[in-house]
């Protein structure tokens, strides 16, 4: 597809992009400035970066590395600090942010997630395996395939099921960590504790789950929670801050039980 629309040409924006470039995990990085013209307001933020990369490639410059996969706001792979905000100015994922949220002449600073626990691998790509290791430490219900009872043998009150679902919508993108001045992953853990803790199936391991997940959280180098609330404000799935209260409550209960 070569020709773009006449409507686009009329509304094409000129932008100045300041983008974090870092060759690999061990090198240091810095912001590079690029000019991009003819940006359509209908482009997604990542499509805008695709266009930049096509231009860089044509000029023989290394394209900007950034992560994305589903580009529909559900896989959690994308995530950029845009003008200092995780996922940018709207409450959504970076892939669902569109250029109509910006204006002609804007200067946009684009950086990777900021957190010691998420080291930069190249440019805007970070390593979030710490989240997987937190799940490994207890973010599950232990049930082997084939050993499950009939689904209707346990009733789950609708409000508990709904609450579990609301917090189970976490996509593991890491915006909560990137937004937190302490670099804490408490919202991520709180969401999982609450999801599994609301359900009867999740009770048997409830005490060990919270203790083990928090232990892993600290071992990974995430910071402590001081109830600032930036995490919930940045969360594209609007996980509420009260999951952290639930996390603390479950931790107290576990300690009372001698864990």
């Amino acid at each position: 597809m070569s020709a773009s629309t006449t409507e686009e040409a009329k509304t094409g924006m000129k932008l100045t992009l300041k983008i974090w470039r870092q060759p690999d995990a061990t090198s240091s990085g810095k912001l590079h400035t690029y000019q991009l013209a003819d940006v359509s307001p209908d482009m997604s933020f990542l499509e805008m970066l695709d266009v930049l990369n096509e231009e860089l490639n044509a000029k023989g410059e290394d394209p900007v590395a950034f992560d994305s996969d589903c580009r529909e706001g559900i896989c959690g792979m994308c995530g950029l600090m845009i003008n200092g905000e995780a996922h940018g100015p709207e409450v959504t994922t970076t892939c669902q942010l569109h250029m109509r949220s910006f204006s002609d002449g804007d200067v946009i600073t684009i950086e990777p997630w900021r957190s010691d626990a998420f080291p930069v691998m190249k440019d805007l790509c970070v390593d979030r395996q710490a989240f997987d290791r937190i799940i490994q430490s207890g973010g599950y219900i232990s049930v082997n395939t084939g050993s499950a009872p009939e689904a209707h043998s346990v009733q789950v009150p609708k409000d508990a099921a709904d609450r579990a679902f609301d917090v189970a919508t976490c996509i593991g993108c890491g915006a909560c960590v990137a937004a937190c001045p302490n670099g804490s992953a408490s919202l991520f853990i709180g969401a999982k504790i609450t999801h599994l803790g609301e359900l009867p199936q999740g009770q048997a391991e409830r005490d060990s789950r919270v203790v083990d997940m928090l232990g892993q959280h600290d071992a990974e180098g995430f910071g402590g929670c001081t109830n600032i609330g930036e995490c919930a404000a940045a969360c594209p799935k609007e996980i509420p801050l009260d999951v952290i209260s639930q996390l603390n409550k479950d931790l107290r209960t576990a300690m009372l039980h001698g864990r």
Partner: protein
Amino acid sequence: MTDSNYEFSADIEGHADSPAAFSDDAAGYYTLGEPLADTKAPNDLPISERWSTRKFEARLVNPANRRKLSIIVVGTGLAGASAAATLGEAGYVVKSFCYQDSPRRAHSIAAQGGINAAKNYKEDGDSVHRLFYDTVKGGDYRSRESNVYRLAEVSTNIIDQCVAQGVPFAREYGGLLDNRSFGGVQVSRTFYARGQTGQQLLIGAYQALERQVAAGTVTTYTRHEMLEVIVVDGKARGIIARDMVTGEIETHLADVVVLASGGYGNVFYLSTNAMGCNVTAAWRAHRKGAYMANPCYTQIHPTCIPVSGSHQSKLTLMSESLRNDGRIWVPKDKADCAKDPRDIPEEDRDYYLERIYPSFGNLVPRDIASRAAKYQCDDGRGVGPEVDGVRRGVYLDFADAIKRLGRDAVESKYGNLFDMYARITGEDPYEVPMRIYPAVHYVMGGLWVDYDLQSTIPGLFVTGEANFSDHGANRLGASALMQGLADGYFVLPHTIRDYLADGPFEPISEDHPAVVEAQQNVQDRINHFLTVDGTRSVDSYHRELGNIMWEYCGMERTETGLKKAIELIRTLKDDFYRNVKVLGTADSLNQSLEKAGRVADFFELGELMCIDALNRRESCGGHFRGESQTEDGEALRHDDQFAYVAAWEWGGEDGQPVLHKEDLTYTAIEMKQRSYK
């Protein structure tokens, strides 16, 4: 992606075998090989006894021996994560690979609608047999009946397993699971978690997988891409993978390899698939001897958000349920296409589905709705922005529904979809009619497998969308999730043990000639891409290939168009190898290099899809041949000539693909032709 299937009971018998002279359209593009048959299903038994019999007859592996057996699983979507977790629980040594940064990101996560299971909780007449029947019929009688029956049988276990894992399915006030009827299916058998069923099921499987990582049975390799399968003495014995961060080419050896690498819809460039979805794992296996079955069977979804410009990188699906209340139209007069739709009076609108299909109107099946939209736009009556000189969109108008039901009722039913539409397009669908256009969504074709899910390479098993087995020529809504989890949790773990019972196989070393050759192939390809130093980007080739596929191997295929497409693909592929521009190095994170390898494989797949479509001079399910339609423009099957699975063998770099036919016979169901007029 919300899926629904508009299925109706308006079967008309007797059309299926309407006589047509056999026309070997693909002559000159292929050679005919020996027929192929599945030998694993006990087909002499009644259909309801086949799976239990096979499970019993499949040999067991002593628990103490399992830790001596190693399994590689490529892909961590529903089919891969569930398989890796279950095999880990059984005690095998499992290595799990994905190209994403975490197993939780696989594209199963984007499925919106739900998962079917024959629980019959609504006591509305559902049963294993009815789910089986609906699936075979929905697949337009092009699937293998033994496999489909088994899928329906194990569907109920999936729900039990997922509930036990903590998947928060929707519930009723009494605390029991809620079900809905999906699309036009007449029973309520679809379990769902609001519009995010795929996400919740995948998180369940991911957590089960991570639990096994903690238990030490599974090792995960994220940001790794499989680039070659290692075949030693005719058996799959491992893979070559590239660490996408360091660029290191790694050899992983095992006793058996499982591909759960998903579908290849991205051959069309624009699709509802994730950016990274690709055919490379499956295609490299194909080139090593795994047959590719029915590659032309593609599902195109009618209700996606249209392309807004040449920058478009992917398409987003909206639930088909929108068609329950929205009315689809285009302007009667081409001169009105650029106007504000609210200024076009009622008498100047063409509600074409209601006009052509008065009994089903806007609820005609997916393929009919998709094709009809294409015809309107080809005719110059499409709406929305002009991209490459054509407006590709039709209106989906809720003005009547808002008038009839009130804005609140429409909002409560479709609010989240309207929000999504507004976010992407910047238009308010409560005020201005939505614009929709069809997009590629799912592929029913894939690597050929037998009843054990084993490919034509012994020791190479294939699960989920990557195989061809269960959906025939068209997949029912809410059945993709069912198949992925059925394969991974309940089918493969039983069938793979029969193969592993012969193991552990003789250890092979990394300097075995087959391993060295596989490594060399990978290295050569990478070196080639980095040294071409041409002028065009990988994406520009991919986009052009996608345009060819969409134009000639999309919603409607013809002999002339397909032959033209094959020539265009060959020319473009040749240019790609000589003129692509890939910057950077092999030993670093290099996203252009990753894409180059995937696009190279898409070229070869695209050509085979066209040859398969050319050969199949009939219309069935998602495959519509212009030459095979009724007087009313309906799809027309030719069961006398095409009631077979087309399994293609790689014919070599300069050779022709070899067609092996697996005849489809039905003992438990009668073949019928559909009609929607």
